[in-house]
């Protein structure tokens, strides 16, 4: 099963996501209907999209997200527990059995900020672990950084405290945007 002139991956993705004009879609569709090789590649892309949806719904992945994405999760019926935390704030948080996910909404002044890194410090019992997440996505106009932790991972954790320090990073160096404390109790 081969193809002499396979559709480029970028074009295939653009077609799948509806980014192309109708006159650019038609030749791709004609090719797909006559080509088992490119159909198989499209099937892989569709399986990836389906897998991503399932992985998110099952709470297996952690990521910085956006407000529209959070709304999309809710529209699909996921029960989301949200914690809005101001800079310097602390919140008692949990993830109950009936929740599908939890989202932290860290308020910060993001005007003019080019890049945001997060320093995460987790204390479980007496043990401390630290992690730096670089280049978290954010919408400068939103005034908050949204983070979706892995619900599946969180359910396995005992009571713990996580401190997140958001940093604005640019050519001149880095400056703190805020520190946020999440005191987590298992649900």
């Amino acid at each position, binding site marked *: 099963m081969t193809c002499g002139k396979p559709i480029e991956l970028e074009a295939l993705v653009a077609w799948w996501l509806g980014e192309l004009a109708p006159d650019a879609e038609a030749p791709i*569709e004609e090719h797909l209907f006559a080509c088992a090789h490119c159909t198989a590649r499209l099937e892989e892309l569709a399986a990836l999209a389906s897998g991503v949806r*399932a*992985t998110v719904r099952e709470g297996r992945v952690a*990521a910085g997200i956006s407000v529209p994405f959070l709304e999309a999760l809710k529209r699909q019926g996921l029960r989301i527990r949200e914690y809005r935390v101001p800079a310097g704030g602390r919140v008692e948080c949990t993830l109950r059995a009936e929740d599908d996910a939890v989202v932290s909404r860290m308020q910060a002044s993001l005007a003019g900020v080019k890049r945001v890194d997060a320093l995460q410090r987790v204390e479980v019992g007496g043990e401390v672990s630290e992690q730096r997440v670089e280049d978290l996505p954010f919408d400068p106009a939103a005034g908050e950084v949204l983070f979706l932790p892995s619900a599946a991972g969180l359910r396995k954790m005992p009571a713990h405290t996580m401190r997140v320090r958001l940093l604005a990073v640019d050519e001149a160096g880095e400056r703190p945007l805020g520190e946020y404390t999440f005191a987590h109790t298992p649900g």
Partner: protein
Amino acid sequence: MERDSRLDAVDDAALARRVAAAGGRVDSEAEAELYRRLAKRVRLYGLRHLRDEQAAADLAQQVLLTTLERLRAGAVREPEKIASFVLGMCRMTVLEMRRGSWRREALLAAWGDREEAYEAREPLSLDRDRLAGCLESLAARERSVVLLTFFADKAADEVAAALGLSAGNVRVIRHRALGKLRACLSGEKS
């Protein structure tokens, strides 16, 4: 009935001609093979245009059973252009489905009790543990772009607006992330 592997060497047009040439008989082997191949393409077309698994499955059944019926009746003028014929049927049926003039009950009433119910292959599905691991291995921004893009099949301009990026930047990040995911899923080192 076990599939004959020699069918791999037979192209779609030849299968369509076999179905059309069967006359009053039914060439079940050619029909089943043609159904199997085209069902995958129609389902994917349906997912892209209808964004709904059930609707895409209904589209595949409607289009392919109608196609087989037309081939048997000699009503497809150029069986060698079967791919174009099926694509045309897809476009027309999707329009009907969007207009709301298509009814699932009519499909079931027309085809539900037919003996020759051909099976489409199960859709490809990824190992979710592996996918979750591969997603975790992406950089934070790449992972977010992949999730925001594919969770609800959003175009680059929508993802860009949500993340304060340009659409071009999102396409670059998306392309790089997809390359890494494909390598990770296939076990290659990126």
